[in-house]
C-alpha cells in the first residue's frame, strides 16, 4: 500500500518554525486552559468558587448548627468564637445559613444555566442552520420575548406562578408544586428564569452558526456525505462553543443576582430556606443594631458575583486570544 512513498516522492517536512509555534497534539481546550492558568484573577476566582462549592456541599460537616435551628438563648449575638458570624434575630447561626445559602445560589445558577443551554442552544442552532422562513418565525418570537425586561418578566411570572403552585395539589402542576416545596420554592424561580434567559443564548448561538455554516469545512463535511445532524453536532457546534461557555459563565452571576433579588422581594425562595436574598431582606430591619446580619450575606453574594465575573473575563481572553491579550 505504500507504493507512493516507494515511487520516490519526497515526503513533506514540517518547518521548524511551526514546530516551535505549537505544542504537539494540543487541542483548543487545552490551549485555552493554559492561557487561563496564566490569568491570576481568574485563577484566584476559580479557587474561591471551588472552596465555596466545597463548603456548600460539606456544610453539614463543617458546622454544628442547622440552618433553621433556633436558639433563643443566643439571639442577635455579635460574632464570637462559637458563632463566627454571629446569630440572627431567631438565634440562627449566620455562617451556617450563608453556607447553606451558597448551596442554593450555586445549584440554582448551575442547573439554571444547564436548562437555559438545553433550550437555547438547539433553538439557535436549528434556526440558523436551516434558515429561511423557520428562522424568521423563531427570531420574531424571540424578538417579542426580548422586549420584556428580564427581571420584570420573572417578577410577573412568579406573581402568577407562586399562588398557582401553592393552590395546586393534583395533576402535573401538583407534581411541580411538590418539587417546588421540596426545593424551598426554587423550582418556580428556575422555571421563570429559564423561560426568559434562554433568549440570549439562542441569539448568540444563531449568530455563531450563521457565520460558521458558510465556512468551507462545512462544505467539505457535506462533500464527505455527512448528514445535517452530524454536521451540526460534530462540525458547527464545537466551533460555536467558546462564546457560549463565556456567556454561560457570565450568565451564572446574573442568575444568582436575579434569584437574590426575587428572594429579597419575597417571590423567590420561601423562608426558612436560607437564600442570601432572604437573609439580606431580613437583615435590613437590623441595619442599625446588628449590621453584620446585612453585611455577611451581602459580602458573600458580592464576592461570588465578582469571582464569576473575573472567571468569565479570564475565559473570554483565554478562548479568544485574538480579541485582547490581558497580560
Amino acid at each position, binding site marked *: 500500500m505504500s507504493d507512493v*512513498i516507494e515511487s520516490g516522492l*519526497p515526503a*513533506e517536512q*514540517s518547518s521548524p518554525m511551526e514546530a516551535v509555534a505549537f505544542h504537539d497534539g494540543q*487541542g483548543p481546550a487545552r490551549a485555552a486552559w493554559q492561557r487561563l492558568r496564566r490569568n491570576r484573577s481568574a485563577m484566584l476566582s476559580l479557587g474561591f468558587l471551588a472552596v465555596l462549592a466545597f463548603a456548600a456541599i460539606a456544610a453539614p460537616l463543617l458546622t454544628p448548627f442547622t440552618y433553621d435551628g433556633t436558639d433563643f438563648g443566643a439571639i442577635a449575638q455579635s460574632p464570637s468564637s462559637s458563632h463566627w458570624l454571629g446569630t440572627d434575630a431567631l438565634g440562627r447561626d449566620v455562617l451556617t445559613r450563608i453556607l447553606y445559602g451558597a448551596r442554593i445560589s450555586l445549584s440554582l445558577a448551575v442547573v439554571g444555566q444547564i436548562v437555559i443551554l438545553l433550550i437555547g442552544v438547539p433553538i439557535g442552532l436549528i434556526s440558523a442552520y436551516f434558515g429561511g422562513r423557520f428562522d424568521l418565525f423563531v427570531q420574531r418570537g424571540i424578538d417579542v420575548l426580548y422586549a420584556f425586561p428580564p427581571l420584570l418578566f420573572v417578577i410577573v411570572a412568579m406573581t402568577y406562578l407562586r399562588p398557582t403552585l401553592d393552590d395546586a395539589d393534583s395533576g402535573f402542576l401538583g407534581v411541580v408544586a411538590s418539587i417546588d416545596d421540596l426545593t424551598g420554592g426554587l423550582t418556580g424561580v428556575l422555571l421563570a428564569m429559564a423561560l426568559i434567559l434562554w433568549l440570549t443564548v439562542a441569539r448568540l448561538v444563531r449568530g455563531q452558526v450563521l457565520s460558521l455554516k458558510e465556512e468551507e469545512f462545512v462544505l467539505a463535511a457535506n462533500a464527505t456525505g*455527512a448528514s445535517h445532524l452530524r454536521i451540526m453536532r460534530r462540525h458547527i457546534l464545537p466551533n460555536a462553543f467558546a462564546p457560549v461557555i463565556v456567556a454561560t459563565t457570565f450568565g451564572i452571576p446574573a442568575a444568582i443576582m436575579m434569584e437574590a433579588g426575587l428572594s429579597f422581594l419575597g417571590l423567590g425562595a420561601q423562608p426558612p430556606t436560607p437564600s442570601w436574598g432572604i437573609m439580606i431582606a431580613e437583615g435590613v430591619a437590623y441595619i442599625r443594631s446588628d449590621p453584620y446580619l446585612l453585611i455577611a450575606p451581602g459580602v458573600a453574594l458580592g464576592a461570588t458575583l465578582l469571582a464569576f465575573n473575573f472567571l468569565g473575563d479570564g475565559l473570554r481572553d483565554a478562548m479568544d486570544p485574538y480579541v485582547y491579550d490581558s497580560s
Partner: protein
Amino acid sequence: MTPLLQVEDLSVRFTTHQGVNDAVKGVSFEVGHGEVLGIVGESASGKSVTAMSIPDLLPTPPAEIIGGRILFDERDVRKMSSLERRQLRGREIGVVFQDPMTALNSVRRVGVQLMEGMRYHLDLDRTEAHRRAVDLLEQVGIPSPAERMKAYPHELSGGMRQRVMIASALACSPKLLIADEPTTALDVTVQAQIVDMVRSITADRDMSVIWITHDLSLLSDFADRTLVMYGGRVMEEAPTATLFRHAEHPYTAGLLASIVDTDTRRDQQLVSIPGTPPIHGAALDGCPFSPRCSYGVEKCPSVHPPLERVGDGHKVACWVRPFASKAPNGG
C-alpha cells in the same frame, strides 16, 4: 462502455439581490472510467460551479440548476433523493477543495475527520477505520502517519493539510475525484509533489479525476483530455496533447501563449490576453470571449457558436477558428 459521468447541457443560475447571473450555460462533457479530465479557465469562467453541481454541493439558494442532465454511473443525479445524493458524496465522488486552511475543521483532530466518512459510508468500526486512515495518510506522503492522526489542523503545514484533504477524499475509494484548484494555495514545489501523488494514486486505482485549474501548464502531462471554459461556456475540448499542439480557439491560443516557462527569455515581454473576464450578469447572448477577441466577426457578440467537432475528440466553439489546421501557434 458508457462513460462514468455524462453531463448534458448543464445550466446553473445564481439569483441574488444584484440580479440574475447565469454562471454556467449549456455545458456538456463526459468523463470515462479511469480518465483524467482537466477543466481550465480564468476566475468566474464557471469551472468550479460546473464541477460542484455534480455532487450537489452548490449553495441553493442562490444557485440553482436550471437545465440539463447529470448522469453518474448511468443514474440521473438530479432525480436522486437527498439521501441517495448524500451516499454519492464521499462514497462515490470525492472532493478536494482549493484552500486546505479552511476546509479542515480546526477544533477536531485530523484523524477523527479522516475516519468520519469511512465509518459512515463503509460502516467500519473504530479500529478498522483507524488502520485504514493511517494507511491513507501514508499513501498521500505524510511522515509518521500514526502520530499525525492525533494532530490538529493548525499543527500541519498547508501542503500537509492538503494531503490530509486528499486522503479524506480518497478514503472510501470513490469512482470519481473532483479536485477544485487543490494546489492554488500552495507553493510551486509542493504543487508538483501533490500533482504527482494524486496522479499515481488515481492511476493505481483506476479512478476518474476532474482536475480544475487556471494553470494550463499543470495539466499538460496529467490530464487525458482538457476542457477550456470561459464565461460559463465550453470554448474548446480536446485530448490534452492535441490542445497543446493544435489549439483552434483564440482563447485557448491566448492561454497557451501566456504560459511562462524556463524557455521564456529574461528580457522577453510576457504575453497576456487583453481585457478582463466578463463581470457577473454582463454575459452576452453570443460568444462571451468576443469583446476580448481580435479575430471576431459581426455575429460573434450576438449568436453563440455551437461546440463543433473538428477532429478526433476535438471540439471547438468558434465561428472563425483562425488557427484551424495551421501550424502550432504561440510560444
